[in-house]
């Protein structure tokens, strides 16, 4: 009798864990505005780390099936989130292209869990899957028409191209950590961030800086008028119950919050 494959293990109910990372506003009205739902693979497997997990899933060509599984897990786990926080979920661009019923699936799932459509943000992740884009555009339009926010992930790196910006016209540009890390003291990174911020203003979009790990970088992001920041400096990903600490009193956020660490997942 052969052992189950890693894919079989991943697709078992309950094998995935959802954690949430707060995203902070950097303007005058500071505080947590929404959280990103993140997935961790099973303990004791090579797929515990999200980067390996999703690379494996993409190599198996199972993005569509897996995205549904992840969204189901994130939305179910979000039940313990403080009211009023937006919830961001990651979806492969290829899933939106090929899974025509995905918008309905997501909206029904959210509705059943008491999450209103305007409280949802679909974070589009792209990894080089070539497609015409007709299904993708229709899916994005369907989500947007029903009040769901759209974010483009990994802006400035990877496959998040200008074409994709035009195709999905995101409300949020999520800037890859590669451009954020070390932006303090690096005029070239600052120039790129400033350029993205300008581009976002043209789109009437907001910018989220990912991977903020240093206070100096955070201050540089503020000076560049980046709208939101996310990263270990501010808060580690944690279970929904832990995020209750952000429930109402988040407007007085200071970088001292970085001293707060999430409990073990």
């Amino acid at each position, binding site marked *: 009798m052969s052992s189950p494959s890693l894919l079989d293990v991943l697709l078992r109910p309950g094998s995935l864990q959802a954690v949430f990372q707060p995203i902070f506003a950097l303007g005058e009205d500071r505080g947590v505005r929404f959280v990103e739902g993140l997935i961790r693979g099973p303990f*004791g497997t090579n*797929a515990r780390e999200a980067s*390996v997990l999703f690379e494996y899933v993409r190599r198996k060509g199972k993005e569509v099936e897996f995205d549904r599984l992840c969204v189901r897990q994130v939305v179910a786990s979000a039940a313990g989130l403080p009211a009023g926080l937006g919830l961001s979920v990651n979806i492969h661009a290829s899933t939106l292209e090929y899974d025509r019923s995905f918008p309905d699936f997501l909206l029904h799932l959210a509705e059943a869990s008491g999450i209103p459509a305007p409280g949802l943000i679909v974070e589009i992740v792209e990894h080089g899957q070539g497609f015409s884009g007709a299904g993708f555009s229709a899916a994005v339009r369907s989500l947007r028409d029903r009040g769901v926010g759209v974010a483009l992930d990994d802006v400035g790196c990877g496959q998040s191209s200008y074409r994709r910006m035009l195709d999905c016209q995101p409300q949020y540009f999520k800037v890859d950590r590669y451009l954020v890390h070390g932006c303090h003291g690096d005029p070239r990174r600052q120039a790129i961030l400033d350029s993205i911020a300008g581009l976002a203003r043209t789109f009437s979009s907001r910018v989220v800086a990912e991977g903020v790990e240093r206070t100096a970088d955070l201050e540089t992001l503020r000076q560049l008028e980046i709208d939101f920041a996310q990263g270990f400096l501010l808060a580690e990903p944690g279970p929904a119950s832990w995020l209750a600490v952000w429930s109402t009193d988040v407007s007085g956020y200071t970088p001292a919050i970085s001293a707060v660490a999430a409990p073990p997942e």
Partner: protein
Amino acid sequence: MLSHLTPCLGEAPEGALSHKILIVEDEDSISFALRRFLSMRGFDVDCASELEEAQALVAHVPYAAVVADLRLTCVHGAEGLEMISHVRKHAPGTRTILLTAYGSPEIEAEARSRGVDAVLPKPQPLGELADLLTALVEAE
């Protein structure tokens, strides 16, 4: 194929320089023995039983060396050769060893053309494999 379900046993002896090694092998017993022995020799060992799992790991984990079996399926596969090519392309500094019970001059020539560092027959004395790995990773 339990390699992805077993916890890491790759505990290097205290103070030893621990090189990270990936074993790509679909037979549980062989994978277990390699992990156990190489861990005791001071390597930090990961195991993968599928090509895609191994490729995903190589894309995100810096390995000093990859030891791949030629066949990861029961048919006439040659996933080990694909793995060698993948490592050469995505982690050119990583050393590679191909293990095979189905060796032939043609297979060895093909593996060489893909940039493998060594082709070894199965079964392979574990001590010799560990010695070769040490020589390869410390030659870097």
